[in-house]
């Protein structure tokens, strides 16, 4: 059985970037909710009933070929920091982390698939991929779901589809979502409009801990709301179409910003670089917002493209539980802020100043021997 430290030591496959995908879409995620026939749902089941359901499901999940050598633990055997790290990595939900006895997490070695046993539903399975890959993620996960049908009897009704604990997940039990980085749309004040439009076609958009449509780190998640009355393929197709459109709006917004107001863009990215490279105390809000701009800089040629991946792993590693795991002890918020700053400084140590790039661009622009575009 895989140990927690082994699982977490390496970044997840989906954290280190997709095939040439440095754009607006960070990750794609598919979640399927399933329940067992004739078994009380976990929130309603008595302790022994919950244990019995777990005893049925756990061997079935662990014996899937794709889950060979997976990390598999009951939640009651994990420390609170370990649970929190798994939440920050999006491998388990906060709801599962809050549960103890009778709930378990089975996580594939590369962190591509994870199964939550006795969460709100008996079984919640998830696949994460880098970039926009909802179709591929669904295909892979659906295959595991079909394999599980061989050993588990899922509750299914010919009219209502897969029966879930909460009626909001009925039918396909599918929640497909993508995490998007949209600094261009935020800086150019178009974000509200775009999100409104996305929403009009029945998709949910949200940022975290923000007022209105603002969001920390300019990170947004788009997902389907409705799960009944539309096939998985139709849900995913619509979502992928909308997400690509948003991503291309974001791309246009970035290009236009750079064209219309290059000084403002350079100023913002330069300041973010300065703070992150030299701060000794930084809270997570400030770090998130600056990392967002650094990431933007990576896509606009202010830094090497590798910077994008660097930012993505930092976004994960500067979160509270990751910091505690890193330092091996419980930290006060003040201690976290200084360790966070230390990690950021050390990771960005060899990142070259954007000035060199900007200067060379200015030289090209002001070079009289360069006739420019005709």
């Amino acid at each position, binding site marked *: 059985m895989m140990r927690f430290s082994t699982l977490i030591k390496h970044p997840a496959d989906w954290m280190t970037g997709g095939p040439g995908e440095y754009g607006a879409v960070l990750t794609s995620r598919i979640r399927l909710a399933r*329940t067992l026939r004739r078994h009380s749902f976990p929130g309603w089941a008595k302790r022994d009933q919950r244990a019995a359901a777990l005893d049925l499901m756990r061997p079935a999940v662990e014996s899937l070929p794709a889950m060979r050598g997976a990390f598999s633990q009951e939640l009651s055997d994990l420390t609170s920091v370990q649970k929190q790290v798994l939440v920050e990595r999006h491998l388990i939900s*906060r709801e599962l982390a*809050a549960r103890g006895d009778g709930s378990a997490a089975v996580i594939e070695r590369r962190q591509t698939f994870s199964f939550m046993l006795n969460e709100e539903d008996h079984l919640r399975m998830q696949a994460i991929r880098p970039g926009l890959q909802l179709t591929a993620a669904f295909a892979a996960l659906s295959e595991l779901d079909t394999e599980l049908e061989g050993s588990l009897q899922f509750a*299914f009704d*010919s009219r209502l589809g897969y029966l879930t604990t909460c009626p909001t997940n009925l039918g396909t039990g599918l929640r497909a979502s993508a995490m998007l980085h949209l600094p261009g749309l935020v800086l150019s004040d178009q974000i509200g409009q775009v999100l409104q439009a996305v929403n009009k076609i*029945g998709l949910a958009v949200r940022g975290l801990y923000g007022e209105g449509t603002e969001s920390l780190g300019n990170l947004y998640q788009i997902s389907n709301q*409705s799960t*009944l*009355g539309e096939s998985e393929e139709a849900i995913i197709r619509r979502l992928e179409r909308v997400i690509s459109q948003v991503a291309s709006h974001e791309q246009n917004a970035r290009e236009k910003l750079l064209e219309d107001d290059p000084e403002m863009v350079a100023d913002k990215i330069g300041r973010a670089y300065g703070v992150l490279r030299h701060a000794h105390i930084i809270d997570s809000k400030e770090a998130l917002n600056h990392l967002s701009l650094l990431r933007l800089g990576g896509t606009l040629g202010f830094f090497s493209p590798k910077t994008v991946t660097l930012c993505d792993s930092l976004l994960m590693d500067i979160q509270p539980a990751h910091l505690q795991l890193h330092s091996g002890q419980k930290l006060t918020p003040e201690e976290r802020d200084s360790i966070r700053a230390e990690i950021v400084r050390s990771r960005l140590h060899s990142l070259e100043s954007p000035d060199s790039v900007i200067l060379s661009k200015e030289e090209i622009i002001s070079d009289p021997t360069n006739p420019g575009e005709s």
Partner: protein
Amino acid sequence: MKCDFCDQKATVFLTQLVEGQMTKVRLCDACARERGVTDPTGFSLGDLLLGGLPGGPGTVAVSSSAGVPGNGKKCETCGFTLEDLRRVRRLGCSDCYATFSDELNEMIRSMHKGISHIGKVPEGMMALQVRNQRLDGLRTRLEQAVVSENYEEAAAIRDEIHNLEDVKS
């Protein structure tokens, strides 16, 4: 500003756009944690509202169709009652969907694009699913045939429906 769920000071402000409607929720730290608001995996405001925010859409749907409180309806498989459904906005087991179908229908209609499942079907359930979809189609055609007073066709369709239904038992 107070939390929508308890009297603590609200520190988390959440705005979500759902189907063109902007919904705002204020929560304190504890309630935000408890309800998984900070959890980027399965959270949606729909679930939160369904979880019993006063005046949330789920609240309305259930109470308006449920009649007098405690009408004694209880799931035979798991013992879940209508009261429990109103309280937790979740169900007790998969059989509850049949037990509380009257109460749930309106709720489901307001939540989803459709009221019948389209999409993946567990292997082994496929035949049943195909048959039910054919039955649905035939029933619609039967109605149309009756309305247009095409009784010969109606009789044929009715026989076909009977044949399909016999397979069930």
